């Protein structure tokens, strides 16, 4: 037996030594920052992606004509130093001088026009929505549309005036055009690199767009503060400091972004020092991070809205405005936000986040008032108890709605108190629920929400209420017209006035009831400084540094 023990002792000792000698998280990374997102980028050609994880990387490599002031939705100069437009159709941009792409080629008006024309002239597989989602969202279609479902392109041309001035021509006036240019999809890429590495080669395989050139995988070339070094799928994207950057140079030498899809794994990676920061902190992990003296939570300004759809239709009690008002008074929104948003939500009084221009302070507010709701019901076509179907999603947590089931339960109780008789329906988020909501077959009321893409009210109000939508089955030409007018308006002051007016009318006629704006959270080691979360997720890493490091 002693012989056996001797033999066993060796592997046990070996493992013990292995473990004891481990130095996980202990490596010195003073000039390297390791950050975790939830997945790999799709690819690194910003014109061809539309997801946050791709943009997290492309935003460091590339720059557009304009960008957002950190932490806000205010548009400020980037590669363009100033701009003007007399008619919101022709936009003049003065370009920054002395800027070079990472491959050493100069940034100038020819590069700007090349990039816009590149997307405008996309054909074949590149016209697929999975390839050019944001071009199609903002510009509609292309120079030669292959499909009749595409609308004529808003963009119709680009004229250089010397090396540092361009005019971008639109088909019709567009107010949101400028704000939309902050999306990474409109970033300016090196024409030389795009051509050299086959950026415009791609095909549809089993209906999915697939770039066949190497640009989007291993040669993304922009003007940004970080240069691309390598991408190992499932492992990491490595970026290095651009020593020739035209602006304030990054304070870290290397930025590594790694994909960790599991929420708990991301938290434990931060706790163990494997990463120094991560995005998309699960609400239930916030207190764990806060209670750790070495870690901190940062708040992303809310850029979303959770709301209760009110679906009108033949024979629906919701056709009656008084019933819709009773719903609004019967939803105890303050209590839901207080109880289920872990201190990270505010009650939404309208359909756009407060920091966006056009937010109105004079909308009709509907504080929880069951007595008033009952009185409204009794004077309406649907007396107490007014029977309604209320849907909520299962198997999901959205940034704007962390716990739909409990939101529903609380709303259902408060509506019952307010004179409604609620029949509950649930469906799995993917795919049944969203389909039912969008097709208008998810009951009289349902829980849903929206996260904005760019800093313009058109991306919120225009998305919901600029035209008829089966989701709400709400017809109000006055609101439709105001929103169309606001979209085409060149004057910011006039646009603000129009969106305020639209917000007031929407909250008067109640096609839905907004209830929460939530703040997503990020987790960091306390010594990571300078990170400013953006409402739309375009967080810059160039001001970030590790204290005690550089």
């Amino acid at each position: 037996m002693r012989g056996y023990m001797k033999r066993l002792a060796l592997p046990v000792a070996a493992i013990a030594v292995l473990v004891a000698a481990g130095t996980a998280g202990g490596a010195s990374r003073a000039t390297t920052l390791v950050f975790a997102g939830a997945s790999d980028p799709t690819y690194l050609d910003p014109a061809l992606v539309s997801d946050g994880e791709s943009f997290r990387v492309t935003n460091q490599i590339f720059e557009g004509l304009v960008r957002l002031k950190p932490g806000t939705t205010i548009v400020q100069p980037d590669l363009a130093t100033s701009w003007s437009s007399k008619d919101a159709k022709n936009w003049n941009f003065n370009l920054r001088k002395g800027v070079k792409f990472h491959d050493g080629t100069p940034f100038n008006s020819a590069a700007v026009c090349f990039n816009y024309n590149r997307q405008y002239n996309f054909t074949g597989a590149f016209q697929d929505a999975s390839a050019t989602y944001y071009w199609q969202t903002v510009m509609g279609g292309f120079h030669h549309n292959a499909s009749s479902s595409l609308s004529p392109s808003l963009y119709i041309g680009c004229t250089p005036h010397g090396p540092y001035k361009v005019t971008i021509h639109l088909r019709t006036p567009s107010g949101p055009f400028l704000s939309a240019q902050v999306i990474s999809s409109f970033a300016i890429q090196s024409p030389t690199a795009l051509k050299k590495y086959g950026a415009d080669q791609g095909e549809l395989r089993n209906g999915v767009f697939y770039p066949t050139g190497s640009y989007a995988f291993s040669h993304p070339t922009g003007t940004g503060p970080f240069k691309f070094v390598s991408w190992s799928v499932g492992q990491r994207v490595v970026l290095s400091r651009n020593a020739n950057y035209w602006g304030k140079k990054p304070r870290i030498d290397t930025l590594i972004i790694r994909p960790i899809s599991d929420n708990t794994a991301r938290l434990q990676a931060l706790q163990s020092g494997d990463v120094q920061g991560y995005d998309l902190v699960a609400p239930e992990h916030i207190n764990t991070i806060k209670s750790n003296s070495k870690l901190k939570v940062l708040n992303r300004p809310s850029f979303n809205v959770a709301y209760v759809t009110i679906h009108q239709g033949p024979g629906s009690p919701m056709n009656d405005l008084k019933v819709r008002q009773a719903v609004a008074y019967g939803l105890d929104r303050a209590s839901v936000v207080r109880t289920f948003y872990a201190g990270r939500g505010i009650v939404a009084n309208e359909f756009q986040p407060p920091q966006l221009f056009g937010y109105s302070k004079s909308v009709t507010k509907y504080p929880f008032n069951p007595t008033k709701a009952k009185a409204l019901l009794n004077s309406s076509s649907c007396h107490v108890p007014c029977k309604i179907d209320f849907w909520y999603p299962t198997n999901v947590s959205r940034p704007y709605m962390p716990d739909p089931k409990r939101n529903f339960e609380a709303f259902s109780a408060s509506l019952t108190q307010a004179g409604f008789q609620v029949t509950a329906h649930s469906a799995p988020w993917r795919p049944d629920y969203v389909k039912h909501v969008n097709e208008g077959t998810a009951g009289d009321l349902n829980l849903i929400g929206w996260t904005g893409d760019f800093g313009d009210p058109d991306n919120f109000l225009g998305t919901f209420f600029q035209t008829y939508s089966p989701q709400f089955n709400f017809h109000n030409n006055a609101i439709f017209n105001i929103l169309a007018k606001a979209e085409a308006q060149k004057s910011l002051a006039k646009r603000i006035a129009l969106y305020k007016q639209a917000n007031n009318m929407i909250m008067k006629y109640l096609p839905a009831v907004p209830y929460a704006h939530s703040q997503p959270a990020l987790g960091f080691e306390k010594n990571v400084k300078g990170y400013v979360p953006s409402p739309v997720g375009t967080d810059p890493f160039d001001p970030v540094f590790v204290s005690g490091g550089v």
Partner: protein
Amino acid sequence: MLRYVVRRLLLLVPILLGVSILIFFWIRALPGSPAEALLGERATPQLVQQLRERYGLDKPVYQQYWAYLKTTLSGDLGVSVATHRRVVDEIRQRFPATIELAIGAMIFAVGFGVPLGFFAAKKYGGFFDHATLVGSLLGISVPIFFLAILLKYFFSVKWQLLPSVGREDVTLNTPHPTNFYILDAIIARDWNALWDAIQHLILPAIALGSIPLAVITRITRASVLDVQNEDYVRTARAKGLPPLEVDRRHVLRNALLPISTIIGLQTGLLLSGAVLTETVFAWPGMGSWLRDAIFARDYPVLQGGILFLAVVFVMVNLIVDLSYALINPRIRYS
């Protein structure tokens, strides 16, 4: 022997055809399609219809299957709907990670399971035997993800001894020509990278190896108990051979046969992708990839990935069967 191997390989054809039909219809029986899964809140009826047409999902299912079979037979497993990467490229990149993890888990399971089972049998009915039985019961019944989180909590978070996620320190710059990180480090003679890869492997391998460990321990114990009462063992003892020699040459060697079968089958299972372990440890292998694909209803990935794993499973089983002949000369294939 050769005829046997050829016959088994030919059997692959109907097996894979059957598997392809099962996968194809199973994933289409799941509620929803990639169109809705991809679009999320933006899934308007028009957009969903457009995407369904683009993916060919509006066609009758038999036509979809035929199209899938044709492209698969030409060696093209398609492009992922969610990541837009070629399924073949993803397999090439991810399968080595799964193999490395499976080997690590089996080294742990065999390295501890065989001695534990052997000692338990030797101390039959004693405290060590009972403790081993209870331990193996725990090994089988504790959910892997729970064990994984527990291991990470102590070894990574609390004591900071081992890394919690991934296959390597992301600040290292080791080239990966084979995608087997331990092998790559050895090829590059980069001992830091080798050490780092081993450290990253320890916790996932323990978590994944916990069930095989329990199974191997129990089988070893039972097998040793069986063998040590055989006549030839008694004869060996009667001849006056030292106990260690008896155990090594007669008991353990003969007890190995059922153990090797179990080891083979467990390896096949582990290679089929360790969904939970890979997810919790952010291990970029086949399991975490297929898990994401299920959520995204990523048909090409599910079809291609599972078909590939079916081939692997069948091949591993064939190798296990053939290895019987090597271990046990009494078995002959014809």
